[in-house]
């Protein structure tokens, strides 16, 4: 008999702590029933196909169709490519601007910091419907606000109906999304910068490290974990995006599918559009791919990025 069971026996038997179960039950039940089970249900559905009103197991057949059948694969690869570009723009534009704004906001004794902070965060709280439509109106050549403004800086000749041109529409919408969400990286980085202790900054100043050099050599290494977090948040958000494209360009993600991303592709596959009937199984297959992409991203972050980032305890 090992010591553990001995201890069990000698210890007075504890009553079952029902309250622990009572505290946990509602959250666990709702979360499991509405989130986890449907998630696995969707993964399972992707392995079946509806043949003559019966769900037939087809293994990875739906994925074969998705990757290989020209009716699906052309749209799928297009949506995936567009989604990657959508993500790249966010990483290259949104996050650096967010870091820049946070760095400026956190400079000591800056006046009106609270005002700037509040104002720059405003777009983030607005719904996609408002953002999508407001920008659609602004960029519309009918209203003429955008060309009018560009005239001020002498760039009027560069104006074109960006949302209507295949080669520009996706980039334009990505930038609108950047405009909306730049507040999130700004706030998280701002919080990280504020948590750097004054002693560290003072020590740097004593050594003559100030201004830009101070930011690059002292602060940036200290906020790397936060940059990791905003990157993975951006990744998950982008590969799950739908609303902005849907409100600005509709379910068909025009012009000619040039702004189609995985979210809108999933919506069309699931619900059907124009002449095509909705197909829950193909929808589930697309959702499964999105799940795997997001899971992959999260795993890369958790196991490769996060463990290698050095965290400093103050």
């Amino acid at each position: 008999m090992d010591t553990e069971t001995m201890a069990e026996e000698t210890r007075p038997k504890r009553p079952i702590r029902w309250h622990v179960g009572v505290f946990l039950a509602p959250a666990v039940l709702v979360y499991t029933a509405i989130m986890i089970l449907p998630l696995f249900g969707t993964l399972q559905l992707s392995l079946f196909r509806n043949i003559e009103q019966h769900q037939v197991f087809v293994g990875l057949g739906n994925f074969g169709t998705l990757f290989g059948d020209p009716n699906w694969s052309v749209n799928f690869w297009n949506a995936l490519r567009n989604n990657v570009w959508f993500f790249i723009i966010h990483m290259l534009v949104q996050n650096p601007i967010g870091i820049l704004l946070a760095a400026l906001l956190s400079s000591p004794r800056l006046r009106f910091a609270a005002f700037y902070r509040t104002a720059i965060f405003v777009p983030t709280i607005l719904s996609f419907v408002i953002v999508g439509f407001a920008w659609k109106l602004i960029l519309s050549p009918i209203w003429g606000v955008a060309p009018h403004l560009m005239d001020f800086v002498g760039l009027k000749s560069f104006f074109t109906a960006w949302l209507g041109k295949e080669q520009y529409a996706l980039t334009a919408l990505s930038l609108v999304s950047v405009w909306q969400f730049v507040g999130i990286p700004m706030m998280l980085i701002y919080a990280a910068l504020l948590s750097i202790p004054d002693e560290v900054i003072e020590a740097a100043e004593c050594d003559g490290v100030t201004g830009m050099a101070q930011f690059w050599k002292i602060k940036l290494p200290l906020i790397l974990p936060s940059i990791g977090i905003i990157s993975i948040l951006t990744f998950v958000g982008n590969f799950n995006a739908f609303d902005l494209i849907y409100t600005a360009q509709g379910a068909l993600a025009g012009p000619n599918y040039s702004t189609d991303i995985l979210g809108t592709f999933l919506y069309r596959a699931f619900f059907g559009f124009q002449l095509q009937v909705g197909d829950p199984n193909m929808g589930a297959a697309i959702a499964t791919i999105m799940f795997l992409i997001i899971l992959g991203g999260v795993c890369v972050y958790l196991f490769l990025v996060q463990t290698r980032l050095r965290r400093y305890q103050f």
Partner: protein
Amino acid sequence: MSTATRSLPRTIGAHAILLTYTVIALFPVILVIVNSFKSRAGIFGAPLTPPTPKTFDLIGYTTVFGQGDFFHYFQNSLVVTVASLFFVLLFGAMAAFALSEYRFRGNTLMGLYLALGIMIPIRLGTVAILQLMVATGLVNTLTALILVYTAQGLPLAIFILSEFMKQVSDDLKNAGRIDGLSEYTIFFRLVLPLVRPAMATVAVFTMIPIWNDLWFPLILAPSEETKTVTLGAQLFLGQFVTNWNAILAALSLAILPVLILYVIFSRQLIRGITSGAVK
């Protein structure tokens, strides 16, 4: 040396950049609101000037109030948001308390299980969620939306609240136990009031995505009876593509409630973010 960090050109530069970005952030919002008070000629003739007596016109607002049932949509959104918020906060706080207060077998595992939903979006389960709602007859009810949003909000709520509940002093809870308070009383009377600031932060984070969501109302509750304001605005805007007065008025009406709430709660929200509640 320290003067270098706050030299005049540097400060001016910082203000110039921040001010430029503030203008970029606010310009579209202001543009929409300002133009919603103008006549059609005013909107197109001089989009960048504020309404003058000549161009001032409320025709857009009259159209919106005459056409869409916005008040009803607004009510639906309010019911869904408030009910989901209530359940997220109540269930989330209870689960967070269980995880942070008691040591039981599988505690860590349960914590990880509940944290899964922070990274994996609930939207990916939509196909099966719709089947579930069809099977239980909940399609086109606000209950369906409330259930989904409660499940969606719980993971982050539990994660943030359990961090805060770990900081509540053990002595206080044990004193309560010695006085013969039940575990339920300790939770509701002692712990909940102490984590109220954290609850407010969670409330704001939970509320914004629920209020603004388009995907689930579109899929689970698109009927006239259950439309939320976001979905209603989307359909309305689609119908009135050429009526710019009505569109701008509808957009302004959709912006204003959120903007007012934000101005009231921004201090709370920003304090929540900067206190490191989200890591």
